[in-house]
C-alpha cells in the first residue's frame, strides 16, 4: 500500500507540526507515507472565490504529485473535499476522477481504511471538538444536527480512546466558526463574530483546548483567542493522537 501525504499549503507554511504529527501518527500505525516535494495547494482558495477557471495548474500539479499512490491522506477535511468535488484534469478525466476517490481526510483514513483502534496517546485535558463544516457535512465525518438520523462521529471515536482526555459538551455542536476561506477577510465583521461566538461556547464549557480536523478553522479561532489573551489553545487532532503527555 503506497500512501502519499498531502499537506495543505498553509499547514506546510504555518503549522508544520501538524504535518509532522500526521506523518508520525501514520508511522506509529505501521504505515509509511511519502511526501511528494512539489506539492503546493489544492486550488480551493481560488475556486471558492469564484475563480475555479484559474485552477488548472493546481489540478495538474496535484495529479502529477499524487496519481501514483494507492491512497492520499491529508490532515484537512476542507482541502480533501475540494479535491473530491472539483479535481479535473483535461485529457485525464477518468484518471483524475479515480484519483479524487483515493483521497482521504486523516481521521476517515484511520477509521475507515486502517480500522485503527487502540491508538496509544495521552492528553489529560478538557477538550472541545470544533467540527469543521467541510469535514462534517461535506465528507460526513460525523452525523449532522440538522438531520433526523442516528448519531456517529469518526473524530469522537478516536478522541474517546485518548487517555485522560475529557471531551466537553457544547451548546451548538456543529455551528460554523466563520472561517470560510476568503470569507474570513471579505466578510471580516461576520466572520469574526461567528468565531467569537464559537470560542465563547468552548470557553463557557470549560475547554482548555479546542481541537478539530481542519487547521484553517483552528487558525481563525486561534487568532481570536490570542487577540483576547485567552489561555485556551488550539490543537489539531493529529497532535492529540501522537501526544504522550
Amino acid at each position: 500500500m503506497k500512501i502519499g501525504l498531502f499537506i495543505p499549503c498553509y499547514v506546510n507554511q504555518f503549522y508544520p507540526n501538524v504535518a509532522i504529527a500526521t506523518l508520525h501518527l501514520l508511522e506509529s500505525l505501521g504505515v509509511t507515507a511519502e511526501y511528494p516535494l512539489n506539492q503546493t495547494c489544492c486550488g480551493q482558495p481560488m475556486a471558492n472565490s469564484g475563480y475555479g477557471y484559474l485552477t488548472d495548474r493546481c489540478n495538474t500539479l496535484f495529479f502529477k504529485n499524487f496519481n501514483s499512490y494507492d491512497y492520499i491522506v491529508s490532515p484537512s477535511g476542507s482541502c480533501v473535499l475540494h479535491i473530491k468535488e472539483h479535481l479535473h484534469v483535461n485529457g485525464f478525466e477518468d484518471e483524475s476522477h479515480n484519483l479524487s476517490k483515493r483521497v482521504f481526510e486523516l481521521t476517515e483514513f484511520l477509521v475507515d481504511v486502517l480500522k485503527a483502534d487502540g491508538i496509544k496517546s495521552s492528553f489529560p485535558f478538557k477538550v472541545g471538538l470544533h467540527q469543521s463544516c467541510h469535514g462534517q457535512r461535506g465528507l460526513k465525518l460525523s452525523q449532522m444536527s440538522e438531520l433526523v438520523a442516528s448519531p456517529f462521529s469518526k473524530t469522537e471515536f478516536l478522541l474517546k480512546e485518548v487517555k485522560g482526555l475529557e471531551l466537553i459538551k457544547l451548546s451548538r455542536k456543529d455551528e460554523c466558526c466563520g472561517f470560510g476561506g476568503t470569507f474570513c477577510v471579505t466578510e471580516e465583521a461576520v466572520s469574526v463574530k461567528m468565531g467569537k461566538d464559537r470560542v465563547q461556547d468552548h470557553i463557557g464549557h470549560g475547554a482548555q483546548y479546542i481541537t478539530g480536523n481542519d487547521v484553517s478553522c483552528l487558525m481563525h479561532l486561534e487568532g481570536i483567542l490570542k487577540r483576547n489573551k485567552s489561555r485556551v489553545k488550539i490543537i489539531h487532532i493529529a497532535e492529540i493522537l501522537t501526544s504522550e503527555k
Partner: protein
Amino acid sequence: MRKTETPLSHASLAESFNKDEQRVNWHDQTLWFIREKRDKAAWQIPEWEQLREVASTIKSNVLANLHEYLTAFEKAAINNGAVVHWAENAEEHNKIVLSIIQKHKASNIVKSKSMLTEECHLNAFLAKNGVDVVDTDLGERIVQLANEPPSHIVLPCIHWKKEEIGELFHQHLGTPKGNADPQFLTGAARKHLRTKFLSSSVAITGVNFAVSETGEVVVCTNEGNADLGVQLADVHIACMGIEKIIPKRRDLGVFLRLLTRSATGQPITTYSSHFKTPRKGQEMHIVLVDNGRSQRLASDDFRNALKCIRCGACFNTCPVYRRSGGHSYHTAVAGPIGSILSPGWDIKKYSDLPSASTLCGSCSNVCPVKIDIHDQLYKWRQEITKKGNSPKQKTILMNIMNLILSHPVLFNLAGSFGRKVMKWAPSVVNNRINPWYKQREMPEPPPQSFTEWYKKNNNGKP
C-alpha cells in the same frame, strides 16, 4: 442621500449591523431558538428524511412537466369560475393587479403575505398609482408602518424588539407610550386592521400551493388574515409564481407537514385555507408570474432553486444570516435561498450575495425540499466571475495567488519570504489594511516549513 459609486454590499451592510454586538447576539439567539424548535418538530416525525425526499421528488416532477401542470391548473381554475392571468415579468404582474383594482374603482385594499408581490415591488407601484395597500399579516404590517422591507420571508419583523414595536404603534396607532406588552399590541393591531378589512373591496393574497388537479390555491397563515380579507372583499386576487404548482391535492399531505415544521417548528399552520370557487357575486383572479423562472428552469445548475416553498428554515439555520440581519442582503428574499435566487434576477446588483456564505452546508440540510443551496452558492460564484462581475482587485489578487500556487519553487520561496517578513518585520502584515489582523492575531511564523523539515529529516527523498 449621496449616490455612492460602489453598489450596496452584504459585507459593508453586515459590518454596520455588527456595530451593536448585543443586538447581534439577540438576533442570533432569537433565530437559533426557532432553528431548535424546527429540530424538535422534525425529530417527532421518524420518517422526516423520507418526507423531504418525497417532497423534493414531487417538485422534480413538477419542474420536469411544468407546462402540463400549469395548463391543467388554468383549465380547472377557469372551470371553477376564476379568471386566470399570465404575467411574463414583475411589470406585467403589477399592471394586471392594478387594472383589476381600477376596474372595481377601489382605492384601499388589503393584502396578506406574499413574497411574490415583494419580489415585484407591488406595494410601491400601487402607491404610485393612488392605491393604498395595507399588509394584514402582523409582521408585515409592522415593517410597513416602519417603511421598511421585511427582513425575513416568514418572520418579516424578526429584527424588531417588542419595545420598539410599542413605540412604533404609539406613533402610528396611538397606543399608550411605553406599552410593549405583546398581547396588548396584537389587540391594538387587530382593531386597527379590522377597519381596513371592513372597508376593502379587493383582497390580495399570496399562494403557498396551487393544485393542478383541482385548480384551487392554498394559502397558509397563522393569523387567518388571508381568509378574513378574501371573505369580506368583492374581489380576490391571488398572486403566485409559476413554480408554486403541485400535481394533486393529496400532495399537500407531504408539503403541509413539512412547511411549518421547517419554518417555525409548529406541526401545521393555524389556517391552511383552500380557495377554489368564488362565492356568488365575488370575482376571483389568479395571476401566474414567470419573472425569470422559465429561464432558471432551463439551467441544470440552478433549476432546483424553483423547488423552494418559502419556509425560511435556511435563514434560521444560517450562521451568517443570524449575524448579519435580513436587510444586509438588500433584496426581497434574503438569506441563503435569496442569495441563489437574486443573482438570477440581476447578476450585477447581487454579485456579492453568493459570497455572503461560508459554504457550511447547513442550509441544504434543513431544506424541506432538499435544494442544494450551498452547491448553488458555489456555482453562482463561478458564474459571477465568468460574467465579469467580480471586483477587479479581487481578480488581480486571485491571479497573483494562482501564479504562486501553480509553481512549487515560487511557492516555497514566497512561503519562506513571507514567514521571514512576519518574524522580522511584523508590521508589514500586522496593520490596519489587513482585514484578518483587525480583530485576530496572525499565526506565529514557524522557523521552517514542513517541506524544509521533511527534506532535512528524510534525506530529501519523498
